[in-house]
């Protein structure tokens, strides 16, 4: 089976199980033929990426998933968000979709994964998120999105003691 060969070549059986017909990523199979006409229309196109970064206040492009990150830098992003109590966000595994993996780099003009978007705007990768976490900027940025960081509640608990 060509799909099985491709699965073995790419990422593994788990990824193959998530793909639609002919081994193409589900997001690509669903996206073609609909929506605005402009170059490509695949899962890595500007239009497709734009839709993804806008679909939630917090969107992360990473390797693996929040439940199982496959890269230390991606895991760092997941852990930082978790510290702030941000568990509801959109995470996209670029290892499942090479078109998206390249498309997100083109979109942000940023060469690496993970990438963090707040309110549709590219904020940076793991290094930047870590520094924002350490200097208090992340709490502020989350507040602008109407998200109250869990760290603020942790501080309040401290004050009560």
């Amino acid at each position, binding site marked *: 089976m060509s799909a099985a060969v491709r699965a073995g070549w790419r990422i593994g059986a788990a990824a193959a199980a998530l793909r639609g017909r002919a081994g193409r990523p589900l997001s690509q199979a669903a996206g073609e033929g609909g929506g605005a006409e402009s170059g490509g229309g695949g899962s890595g196109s500007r239009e497709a990426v734009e839709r993804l970064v806008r679909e939630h206040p917090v969107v992360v492009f990473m390797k693996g998933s929040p439940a199982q990150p496959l890269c230390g830098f991606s895991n760092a992003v997941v852990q930082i968000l978790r510290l702030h109590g941000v568990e509801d966000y959109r995470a996209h595994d670029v290892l499942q979709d090479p078109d998206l993996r390249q498309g997100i780099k083109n979109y942000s003009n940023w060469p*690496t994964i993970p990438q963090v978007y707040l309110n549709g705007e590219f904020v*940076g*990768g793991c290094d930047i998120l870590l*520094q924002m976490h350490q200097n208090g900027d992340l709490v502020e940025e989350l507040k602008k999105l109407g998200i109250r960081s869990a760290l603020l509640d942790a501080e309040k608990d401290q004050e009560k003691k």
Partner: protein
Amino acid sequence: GAGGPLARTIRAKLTAALQPTHLEVRDDSPRHGGPPGAETHFGVLVVSGRFAGLPLLQRHRLVHEALRAELAGPLHALQVIARTPQQWQSDPRAPPAPPCLGGSKRERRRG
């Protein structure tokens, strides 16, 4: 020693582009499953007056711009710490790199 050829290239390009007052270039490849000297994952600590007044995103973009060819080629991952000389003086420490979780081993290596 001075490191492998990519390490030397990274050092030279960052020096030329950003005139750093302090520069550390670290080959993290062995920590990501590569053999010693693989030169695929690097971390750079750049202290430069060029970063003054720039938000983190713009600082990192300057570093990426200097290493555009390498990032399009053999440089698979790049950790960046970008500080002004004042920031570095008041806190001369860099956070440790996150541990590898084997991601590179789970994908076909780019040719």
